[in-house]
């Protein structure tokens, strides 16, 4: 399924604070249904006006959920672009291009999927779990957060196991601790992960060490999202680069030397 050509507006119908995140819902009745792991380039009507005269470029966000033509996105206000997006209110317009890129693939028949999300990286795990539940595919959700306030976002998923850095909710430690335990019990599972670079790199190493099929949803600064700017590239083990927007954002961990730090 390809995306409509050009930027279109989606009216914001709801915004809700969930822990440290804002869930913004916008109606996109004419748009194609996104696959889990796909992303949109998001913008607001006005550019500039935030810190340092930014934002100017759209921001790439994985779609978190889709319900009856309404797209859900998860924002954390950390910079000029995300501040603007996280302040959207019902009735305002969210500019979008998408859905773009390559999403997750289901595990081989009979294998279990381990969905690993860290921080804002829980977003694509929501829609991926929705799909796996609908298809009746066995899976387990493992989520990592800074603390219990951010861990409130775990309520957006079904039966997740949670780890927090400070132990204020769930297991004290990294989500990779939970992943290691799951892999010990079920070495034939498939890993699907999204989160900060440090976490994704730890997941990649774990997957490679154990020979576990591992799909990583990468984040990268991108200007366009549709393969034009060549700004979002990630180095490949085989040499050269892949465009995260076009060849990813979900890439097989085997293709990568390592997950870039930014």
């Amino acid at each position, binding site marked *: 399924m390809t995306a409509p050509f050009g930027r279109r507006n989606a009216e914001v119908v709801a915004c809700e604070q969930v822990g440290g995140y804002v869930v913004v819902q916008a109606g996109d009745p004419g748009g194609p249904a996104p696959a889990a792991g796909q992303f949109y380039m998001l913008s607001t009507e006005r550019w*500039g006006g935030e810190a340092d005269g930014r934002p100017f470029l759209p921001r790439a966000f994985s779609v978190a959920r889709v319900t009856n033509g309404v797209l859900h996105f998860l924002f954390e206000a950390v910079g000029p672009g995300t501040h603007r997006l996280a302040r959207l209110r019902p009735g305002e317009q969210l500019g979008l291009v998408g859905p773009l890129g390559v999403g997750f693939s289901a595990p081989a028949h009979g294998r279990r999927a381990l969905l690993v999300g860290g921080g804002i990286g829980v977003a694509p795990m929501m829609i991926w779990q929705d799909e796996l539940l609908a298809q009746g595919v066995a899976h387990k959700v493992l989520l990592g957060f800074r603390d219990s306030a951010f861990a409130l976002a775990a309520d957006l998923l079904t039966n997740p196991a949670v780890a927090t850095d400070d132990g204020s909710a769930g297991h004290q430690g990294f989500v990779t601790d939970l992943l290691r335990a799951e892999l010990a019990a079920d070495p034939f599972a498939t890993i699907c992960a999204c989160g900060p670079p440090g976490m994704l790199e730890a997941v990649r190493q774990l997957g490679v060490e154990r020979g576990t099929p591992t799909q990583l949803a990468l984040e990268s600064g991108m200007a366009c999202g549709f393969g*034009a700017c060549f700004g979002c590239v990630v180095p490949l083990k085989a040499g050269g680069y892949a465009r995260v927007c076009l060849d990813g954002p979900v890439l097989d961990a085997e293709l990568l030397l390592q997950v870039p730090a930014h």
Partner: protein
Amino acid sequence: MIAFCGLELEHPVINGSGTFDAIAARRAFGDVVITAFPFSAYVSKTITREPRDGNPPPRLYETPSGMINSIGLPNKGLTGYLEDDLPALAELPVPLITNVMGSTVQDVAALVEAVDAQPAIAAIELNVSCPNVSTGLDLGADPVELGRLVQEIRPLTAKPLIVKLTPNTADVAAVALAAEAAGADAVSLINTLRAMALHPDGTGEAWLGAGKGGLSGPAIRSVALAQVAAVAARVTIPIIGMGGVQNGGHARALLQAGATLVAVGTESFRDPAVGARIARELHDFPANSAQSAL
């Protein structure tokens, strides 16, 4: 219809080289990219003789009113372009302009001769202005050097030869004049302005993997207008004007400054179909309509 170097174009809006990958766009958006192609001609990204991976990331930095890129001209090389990409680009409903860059006269000559042999290619744009590559910078910054290069290349092709000028030079009009005198059919400007950004961690390290890059977007629009006007005052060959064009009014201003065509670059990153809107706005935007200065 617009006449440009013997080509008949539907409207005056084309893309800037390296800002719209028609093949990638077709993967993302489907055949509508072909049926509703936003530009009246398509300029390829820069092709070099050998394949290039491009610069190490990070390659982008957002600035007030624009962005810095340090992409480093990744491309499949001449053979890869002709074998893999040209058949797909030949399906576009508009004339194809192939942009080439070489670090020596021999390299450029080989590229121009190979491109000249392709009936699917309507015109050649010579990149002498990419600030990411030191050789390109040197060639395009100096009127004598550039004149020599164009003089060598000119006899190798009967196709329209466009020279894309660098803004990173003391006197862009003098360089444009040298290109014209050496036989260029047109000039295009402006390319990105040399720029850099520091790492946000405060260490003072350069953010971009290659250290420096080029600034584009609305931030450079006024510079583009001034340089197009300066070049138009000195040359008689047609000009492709570009730099920060976001709407029909911006495009109109470049035409009023002396451009025959206008190219859209960075704005396509924000909206892949924006070229069509700008062409429409330009058509609907009367030449003498006033804009409030307040």
